[in-house]
């Protein structure tokens, strides 16, 4: 594989940038929390690399600060080595508009279901909690996760690989909620709106739609808990749509309004934003025009090494343990293979506990680097539908759907 595939995202070299000298008295007041700010270097081609590590957001621990307002917070890479479920306080955060409620009263919150239905209903959270409870492990991944690795680079949130997370979601089936209102014949889509609002009044409110059959498939759910606790506000408290196997743009946060449509949704966020080239792997040549665009949809397989960083030194001629995570996208992980020669030869990895087909799956493999020298470690996943990660990266102007086989360069000595 070419060096263009190198993924140094696991390095995340931590540095400490002392502010006292430069900040002056005003800065001193702001930085008393720690007198120093931690930063992280994301190895994005061409940079800029440096991001602050922030602990300033509610219900969140240390996060990589991509944008303060509206918040874009990336999960530090080391979190993914700790387990198959991503802790709520380090689960990544992504909002489109800056008007986000800072308080939600569970006694007055209503979930309205209306549109092409037999009767409009307005459900309290108590109503929702009283419905049959379901639980599902599923990966939530930003459409633009890993956008910062696109070459040529593209504008947008310059994420490394941490705009994803895996949680056990608890809630109710969307189908059951829709049945409360009674979907009329002729319904084509279901549109979801949350409590967040644009800063500019005539700007498009963030709404997303799913096809009616998808919405009623019994898997799409409204979650009131993740990993056994109510959702952090920044992850969509009190109710979040969970669309297993699909990119997170559909996982509308703070859902308060569900509208059944008898015509295809023509709102900006469904029709125009979050579209991909209708080509294999959403791949086009930079500058290519005239490509049909379609809404982004199901996820594709990915896998990562989590316990060895790029540039690490491993012992020569002795066994080392490689460990990581994989997910199949919209079907389960069928196999994970590991290579120590940059993808020329592959060895099956051992898969960890199966938490369900939409979950991260941990894997491990014992490798022996035969002699001192440089090695390119690679990992690849094939899903249960037979779809495998490609060995060349895709490209599109939005930086969506990266899933190339990742390579980590190490040294044996």
């Amino acid at each position: 594989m070419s060096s263009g595939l190198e993924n140094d995202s696991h390095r995340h070299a931590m540095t400490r940038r002392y502010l006292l000298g430069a900040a002056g008295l005003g800065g001193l007041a702001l930085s008393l929390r720690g007198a120093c700010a931690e930063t992280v270097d994301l190895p994005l081609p061409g940079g800029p690399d440096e991001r602050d590590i922030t602990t300033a957001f509610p219900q969140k621990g240390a996060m990589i600060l991509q944008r303060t307002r509206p918040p874009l917070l990336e999960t530090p890479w080391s979190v993914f080595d700790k387990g198959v479920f991503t802790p709520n306080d380090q689960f990544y955060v992504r909002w489109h508009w800056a008007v986000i409620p800072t308080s939600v009263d569970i006694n007055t919150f209503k979930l309205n279901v209306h549109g092409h239905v037999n009767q409009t209903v307005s459900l309290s959270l108590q109503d929702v909690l009283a419905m049959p409870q379901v639980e599902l492990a599923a990966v939530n991944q930003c459409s633009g996760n890993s956008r910062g690795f696109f070459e040529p680079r593209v504008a947008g949130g310059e994420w490394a690989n941490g705009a994803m997370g895996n949680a056990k979601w608890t809630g109710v089936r969307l189908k059951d909620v829709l049945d409360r209102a009674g979907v009329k014949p002729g319904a084509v889509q279901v549109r979801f709106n949350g409590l967040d609002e644009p800063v500019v009044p005539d700007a498009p409110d963030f709404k997303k739609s799913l096809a009616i059959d998808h919405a009623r498939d019994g898997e799409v759910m409204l979650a009131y808990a993740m990993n056994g606790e109510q959702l952090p506000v920044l992850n969509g408290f009190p109710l979040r749509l969970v669309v297993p196997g699909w990119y997170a743009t559909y996982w509308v946060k703070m859902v308060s309004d569900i509208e059944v449509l008898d015509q295809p949704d023509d709102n900006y966020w469904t029709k125009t934003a979050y579209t991909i080239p209708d080509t294999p792997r959403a791949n086009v040549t930079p500058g290519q025009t005239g490509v049909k665009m379609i809404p982004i949809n199901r996820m594709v397989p990915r896998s990562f090494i989590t316990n060895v960083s790029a540039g690490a030194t491993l012992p020569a001629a002795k066994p080392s343990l490689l460990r990581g995570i994989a997910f199949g996208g919209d079907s389960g992980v069928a196999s994970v293979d590991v290579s120590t020669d940059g993808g020329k030869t592959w060895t099956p990895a051992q898969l960890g506990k199966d938490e369900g087909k939409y979950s991260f799956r941990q894997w491990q493999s014992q490798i022996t680097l035969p002699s001192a020298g440089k090695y390119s470690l690679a990992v690849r996943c094939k899903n249960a539908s037979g779809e495998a990660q490609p060995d060349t990266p895709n490209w599109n102007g939005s930086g969506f759907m990266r899933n190339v086989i990742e390579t980590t360069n190490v040294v044996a000595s």
Partner: protein
Amino acid sequence: MSRTMFVVAFVFSAACAHLAANAAPFTLKSESVNFPDSDKTFPGPGADAINNNCLSCHSAGMVLTQPALSKDAWTAEVHKMIANYKAPIDPNDVDAIVAYLVRTKGK
């Protein structure tokens, strides 16, 4: 009888396929939080237009961490903010905003 059993078995397997439904009822409590804001501004000469027009919708940090992009790409970004996201940008400031981005983040 056999039909009843079939229905029961089907319902049971459908439930198991996707859920570990458990009996424990879940309770929620109200939340009230505060979000931090950023007082970061675009630095250097020629930043007035971008500071005056762009910070109401988003903080400066994400723009400052963008990669180097061509003038065409920056022009398209600014016009996307106006056309798609209704950014209330003074038309007289567009050139100055693009010029700042090209000077600090151009290629």
